[in-house]
């Protein structure tokens, strides 16, 4: 069973992202499943970044540490990831960098420099790349030094281009050398390069030349290796996309007509991809309109306050409208969330969580905005919050979020995170099965009498929705009567609060329990892990590992966190002997929420808040530690 993990590291702006994507494409071409994520600093050029990849024949659920291979394009990457490679694995590094001293690498975080200095001093060594390589070799890691300068010279000769203009191909030299060790053939790398730089023949040519040079060097120095067999997933068309892109696609085919955003990591790439595709051919739909493309208004606004208010205006006028943001932007949106609750506006906010508080670590992941999302907005502001566990769920949820928003005339927060945003996965046509998706617009009416009541009282709390511009009305953020006219009358007030409560009950009743939560694994297992969001596949992977080790556990994944499925959660948790919450925040937000809704106290937490993705081995470690030592809380800390 092929199951490979590797890391490609280098300076930001040095082609690490392209290198990562090329490796993913090479393995997809070869017939494998892949998962790859990008870890990077909030920096344009120079700081360390890396791509972390896992490849398998079967489903790839989670990234894994330690990896089989580290490809270090620069000195900082060798030193940063020195402990991330398993014994028996490989490090490919720049042979010209052996004398580089960690304490002299300006771009390296000072704390890391100090940790490395102490580590090597303790062994009586200087903190250099050479020492790192030596230490790695001592613990059974095989290392390959690439004479990058010479190899670049060779690429220059081969292409006839000056070194300066092909210097960027070091990333491809590195990745090809690395993939060589994993048995990937040159043709697959060349195909991947073509896919990556398609339409730019010069760039393709120089990178293919770089791959050739690297491949020949490896063949000469390392000798032949066992070729990676073709994987089982061949002979069909597959899709490689990030979470940002999958959500963008879902919105577009799911009927989005109006999207606003203010630039913020890690949300902007979603809006960018929508904008790129704001006028695409949507088949039959485009034909009906007799247009070349289906127009979507995508607007970068002056701030997040404008982003949501503009989406609210568009939604009130009848557009299928959304905005996307991250924690800081969502903070700015809070007042308007409250408006959308009071004025009953169907608006979707796609919230890509990142590591806070405040700016925190802008480009890193976390699950710290669960309570923020649920309790956003002043006043009593019930709303729908749905969290996706992976790319496929994110696809369907993004469309469902619109349906719910319009059916219930309420804001819907679609909760995702940086890990999903920048993680690329491979999808098959059947993964995005739109034939099982409905597009429904609720109680939308397009013609009506002169006395339209925007907030007509109904049994289910949901009023007929006439878009602005079709009837005289007032859509109001002030407490109002049925027509929307401002009213401070105590009876009107109570009636309207009750109406909105009734609506929330309707929501709770209408969303099937199966869409609110999923119990993965054996329902009778004595250990239950509880989590939400992007930890899903990591936990599923950990469950398999635990089972192999004789620990039987199941996993309660919460999908809809507001309205909260209290009864089902209560029932499931009370069956288990041990309940462990797994979440990427420090306060135990999910545990808090569970206790608030059910009274059940989750006594054990596996937490991660170093702003790096969660790894399956960490969950396994945490569960075992809790089971054997009975500790309340295990903080896991993997990732560079």
């Amino acid at each position, binding site marked *: 069973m092929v199951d490979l993990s590797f890391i490609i590291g280098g300076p930001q702006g040095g082609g690490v992202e392209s290198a990562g994507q090329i490796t993913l494409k090479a393995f997809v071409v070869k017939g494998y499943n892949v998962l790859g994520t990008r870890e990077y600093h909030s920096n344009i050029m120079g700081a360390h970044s890396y791509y972390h990849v896992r490849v398998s024949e079967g489903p790839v659920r989670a990234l894994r540490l330690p990896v089989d291979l580290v490809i270090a394009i620069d000195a900082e990457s060798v030193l940063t990831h020195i402990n991330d490679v398993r014994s028996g694995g490989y490090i490919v590094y720049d042979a010209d960098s052996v004398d580089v001293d960690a304490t002299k690498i300006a771009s390296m975080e000072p704390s890391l420099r100090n940790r490395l200095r102490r580590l090597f001093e303790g062994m009586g060594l200087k903190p250099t790349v050479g020492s790192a390589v030596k230490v790695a070799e001592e613990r059974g890691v095989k290392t390959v030094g690439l004479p990058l300068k010479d190899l670049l010279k060779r690429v220059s000769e081969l292409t006839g281009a000056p070194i300066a203009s092909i210097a960027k191909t070091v990333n491809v030299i590195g990745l090809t050398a690395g993939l060589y060790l994993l048995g990937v053939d040159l043709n697959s790398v060349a195909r991947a390069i073509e896919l990556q730089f398609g339409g730019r023949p010069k760039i393709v040519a120089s990178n293919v030349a770089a791959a050739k040079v690297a491949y020949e060097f490896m063949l000469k120095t390392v000798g032949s290796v066992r070729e990676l067999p073709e994987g089982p997933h061949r002979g069909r068309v597959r899709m490689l996309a990030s979470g940002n892109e999958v959500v963008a696609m879902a919105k577009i085919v799911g009927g989005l007509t109006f999207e606003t955003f203010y630039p913020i990591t890690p949300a902007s790439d979603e809006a960018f991809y929508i904008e790129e595709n704001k006028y695409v051919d949507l088949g*039959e739909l485009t034909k009906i309109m007799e247009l070349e493309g289906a127009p979507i208004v995508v607007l970068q606004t002056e701030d997040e306050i404008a982003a949501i208010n503009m989406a609210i205006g568009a939604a009130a006028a009848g557009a299928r409208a959304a905005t996307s943001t991250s924690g800081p932007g969502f903070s700015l949106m809070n007042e308007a969330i409250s408006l959308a609750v009071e004025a009953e506006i169907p608006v979707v906010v796609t919230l890509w969580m990142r590591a806070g508080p405040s700016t925190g670590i802008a480009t890193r992941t976390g699950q710290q905005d669960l309570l923020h999302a649920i309790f956003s907005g002043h006043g009593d502001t019930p709303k729908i919050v749905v969290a996706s566990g992976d790319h496929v769920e994110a696809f369907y949820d993004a469309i469902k979020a619109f349906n719910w928003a319009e059916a219930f005339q309420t804001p819907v927060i679609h909760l995702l995170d940086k890990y999903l945003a920048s993680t690329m996965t491979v999808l098959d046509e059947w993964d995005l099965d739109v034939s099982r998706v409905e597009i429904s617009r609720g109680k939308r009416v397009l013609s009506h009498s002169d006395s339209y009541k925007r907030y007509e009282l109904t049994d289910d709390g949901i009023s007929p929705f006439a878009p602005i511009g079709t009837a*005289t009305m007032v859509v109001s953020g002030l407490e109002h009567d049925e027509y929307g006219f401002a009213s401070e009358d105590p009876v009107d007030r109570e009636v309207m609060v009750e109406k909105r409560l009734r609506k929330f009950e309707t929501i709770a009743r209408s969303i099937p329990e199966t869409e609110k939560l999923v119990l993965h694994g054996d329902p009778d297992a004595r250990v239950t892990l509880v989590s939400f969001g992007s930890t899903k596949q990591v936990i599923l992977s950990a469950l398999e590992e635990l089972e192999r080790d004789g620990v039987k556990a199941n996993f309660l994944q919460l999908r809809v966190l507001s309205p909260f499925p209290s009864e089902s959660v209560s029932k499931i948790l009370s069956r288990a002997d041990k309940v462990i919450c797994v979440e990427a925040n420090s306060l135990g937000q999910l545990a808090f929420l569970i206790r608030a809704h059910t009274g059940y106290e989750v006594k054990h937490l596996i937490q991660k808040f170093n702003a790096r993705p969660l790894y399956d081995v960490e969950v396994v470690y945490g569960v075992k530690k809790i089971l054997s030592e009975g500790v309340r809380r295990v903080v896991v800390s993997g990732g560079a």
Partner: protein
Amino acid sequence: MARRWLDYKTEAWVQWCPGCGDFGILTAVHRALAELDLDPRRVVVVGGIGCASRSVYYVKGSNFHAIHGRAIPVASGVKLANPELTVLVMGGDGDLLGIGGGHFVALGRRNIDVTVIIHDNAVYGLTKGQAGPTLPVGVKTKALPYPNVHDRVNPLILAYASGYTFIARGYAYHVNQLKDIIKAAIQHKGAAVVDILQPCPTYNDIMTKEWYEERIYYLADEDPTWDPRIRGPEDYHKIPRIIEKMVEFGDRIPLGIFYQDLTRDTLEERLERQMPGYLKAPPAVRPISINGKPPVHPFKVFKDKLIET
């Protein structure tokens, strides 16, 4: 049959103080809409928070009462979602130039076809008379414990710098002239702003009716050849004079249409160029599904993400 201004009144009790300038503005808006004979279902008044923003309840339309400072983005969303609608923003100087100042600038940059009516009384009335962004420095209105330490923003210059293509100033008690200005602003294609000087008889005891009426005059009265229209480069020579008049605010305060740029595209037109058919099938009205299903599989659309294995 053409509509009368009474057709734009609503049943709601108009809850402004007696003598408030808002009444004049409201009447001028009613009359402008009537003369333009606009279907109230197709007229959208968006308000923020404050006395002025209550206009959403007093003008018959398909209206939206938003939150403090955010009327412009809500109005922009409505207009871009359905460009056929006539969209007005009515709010105070505090709402539009204070808390909402960033959005005021952005609307000018975008040149969306929205008319912004500033009820400019230089005070925050509903919260009992604090200094508004157009209150001059050193002025101590009766609710202020000390004279104002902020200087005033000039709404016209701000509008010009932001890119509004129609900039005018009116006076709340001159209902007829004001009606004509508002009409011209609505008819203008692009972002229009009408700054309306408006005494607040309750809280602004300095900039009173008398104070204004000693100072105001109409541009066209002073200079019968006054023509604010910029039709092309041949009219650029007018701009220094226009700015000179916009800056004038002291012993004499000019009123009228200062500036109307006919050369610039609206955002709607820019979008139409990028997406031919946008105006015909805008976000609020275009179909989104086929028989209640997504129209197409993502693999048929997002081909840049596909890999043949």
